[in-house]
């Protein structure tokens, strides 16, 4: 018997109980739509956080001194790069490199009359395009010039919490390269906002020359930060820039904690996927079993006419597949609508919640979703496979009915 006729019977039978078929379809659609939307949100947040970290904190590639440890932020000469300009020139010579600049990092304490805050000092080349995101985020005052000997740039969130404004004086204290405490008075030249509260509240920028003088680093840099035209060239560029006395790290190495944490989180999320799809499977089994029980006599008639168990099984599998495919189609529409909304409007979580994530997670104050085609394909396929698997028992049950038993049914 042609598959098309079995499909005709299966499809029309779904129409016999429109409400039941409709609600089952809705269950599949809502389940898949929910997972696609959530997946789009998580995908967007993860991608956004990683992108924020790369553009603000790590870059795509970093060249560091072989003994430099980021968690210590040492200013000792042995841990710093003695020839940052040469390394920058070497990096810029590569076609894959978009921007490269030296950075000096140190731990500082910013003091006002009545408050203090532990921050990370960033001594930067203020002319480099590497800092375009921060330059674009200046919300008050001005961006410091390379020869500015007094100006610092702080985050607006930090300024608000410390009661600081443009033009006000602040005291910075640190342990310099000789291991002695040192301090200096600086003027708040400008306030910036990147949209990443954890970043805005933890950093203070000053021109590299001034930072080197202040810390006693004399011409050295903690690292060279490099942005690429294409993130996928990171390994290639890292290999090209490797050499004796330096460590070259890619964005993947520099965001390892974040990437690994997200991977662990995704495995928990996969459990949620499984639970939702399992619920959908149970609904499918229930719907099909009801259909089988209601159609005992019809199965008997078809068997009496000579339809074999295998054909009856295929008929029910087609019924499930049709229901599943229609549900998946509607689910994809719901998912697309959900992700589109999240991608454009997002979910505002506020600065405080975003800052709670800490410096390892460059979370924006608004979470945006993102379309991920692989996710749509994988979840839709998984739903279809589960729907088919769930229909195997009802289909098997219908196929094994003895004609004479089925014909006796009411």
């Amino acid at each position, binding site marked *: *018997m*042609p598959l098309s*006729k079995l499909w*005709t*019977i299966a499809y*029309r*039978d779904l*129409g*016999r109980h429109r409400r039941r078929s409709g609600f089952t379809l809705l269950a599949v659609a809502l389940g898949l739509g929910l997972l696609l939307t959530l997946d789009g949100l998580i995908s967007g947040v993860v991608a956004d956080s990683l992108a924020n970290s790369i553009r603000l904190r790590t870059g795509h590639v970093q060249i560091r001194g072989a003994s430099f440890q980021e968690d210590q932020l040492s200013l000792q000469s042995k841990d710093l790069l003695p020839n940052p300009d040469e390394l920058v020139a070497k990096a810029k010579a590569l076609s894959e490199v978009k921007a490269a600049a030296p950075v000096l990092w140190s731990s500082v304490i910013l003091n006002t009359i009545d408050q203090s805050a532990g921050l990370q000092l960033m001594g930067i080349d203020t002319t480099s395009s590497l800092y375009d995101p921060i330059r674009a985020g200046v919300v008050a005052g001005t961006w410091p010039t390379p020869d500015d000997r007094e100006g610092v740039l702080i985050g607006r969130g930090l300024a608000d919490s410390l009661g600081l404004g443009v033009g006000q004086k602040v005291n910075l204290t640190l342990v310099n390269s000789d291991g002695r405490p040192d301090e200096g008075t600086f003027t708040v030249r400008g306030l910036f906002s990147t949209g990443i509260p954890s970043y805005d509240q933890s950093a203070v920028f000053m021109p590299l020359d001034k930072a080197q003088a202040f810390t006693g680093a004399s011409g050295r840099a903690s690292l060279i930060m490099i942005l690429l035209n294409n993130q996928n060239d990171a390994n290639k560029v890292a290999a090209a820039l490797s050499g004796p006395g330096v460590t070259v790290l890619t964005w993947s190495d520099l965001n390892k904690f974040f990437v690994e944490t997200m991977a662990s989180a995704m495995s928990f999320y996969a459990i949620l996927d499984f639970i939702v799809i399992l619920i959908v499977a149970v609904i499918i089994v229930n719907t099909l079993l009801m259909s089988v029980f209601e159609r005992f*006599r*019809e199965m008997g*008639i*078809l*068997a*009496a*006419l*000579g*339809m*074999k*168990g295998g054909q009856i099984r295929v008929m029910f599998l087609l019924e499930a597949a049709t229901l599943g495919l229609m549900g998946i189609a509607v689910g994809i529409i719901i998912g697309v609508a959900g992700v589109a909304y999240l991608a454009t409007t997002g979910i505002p979580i506020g600065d405080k919640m975003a800052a709670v994530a800490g410096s390892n997670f460059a979370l924006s104050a608004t979470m945006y979703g993102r379309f991920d085609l692989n996710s749509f394909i994988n979840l839709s396929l998984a739903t279809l496979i589960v729907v088919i698997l769930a229909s195997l028992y009802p289909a098997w049950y219908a196929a094994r009915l*003895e*004609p*004479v038993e089925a*014909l006796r049914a009411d």
Partner: protein
Amino acid sequence: MDAIQIENVSKVYRIGEVETHALKGVSLTMAEGEFTALVGPSGSGKTTLLQLIGCLDKPDQGAVKIKGKDVTRLSANQRADLRREEIGFIFQFFALVPVLNAYENVELPLLLNSVKSSERRERVMELLKAVGLSDRAKHRPDQMSGGEQQRVAIARALAPHPLMVLADEPTANLDTENGKQAMEIMQRLNQETGTAFIFATHDPRVVAFARRVVKLRDGRVDSNGAQA
């Protein structure tokens, strides 16, 4: 050779701890083209006998032979093949597939037998015309009266040119006029096609049409029936 040979067939049904002896050592033969009624009160075994002839069930003892072949030795799929090719069924509850229209219901056995599309169309229209329903081909069962549904069932039963048509209480859900009409159609088609018709019935209207009456009582053949 007789078309159907039933040799010392017994059938016991077990429901829980209760055993019901539906047939007790029944032996019977039927020729091709018969128009035979199996009659008896409820519980006499006529429906069970019909089901065994129709390969819907297997006896606990004895043999059922169709064209000399012992069908009790066949697998479930082989019995399905035999039903598909040689046996048509008519039930008291019409038994049409509710989501298919009249044309599609009659076509169903032909599809199961992989008959070519052009041959199918010709055969279906021929049968619908024979039962007076050419103009109802596109109607579904819920759009037809009981009498019309039973006529579609008759057409469907004859679609694959079967050896026999087995009808279990075919007029039970029909009024007098429709029941008579259905029997007249089956009698005419029996004479025109040579297909045997075997009825399980206690309706005297059906018995009146039968050329042979086999009486059953308590699972045994009471009288083997001359042609009526």
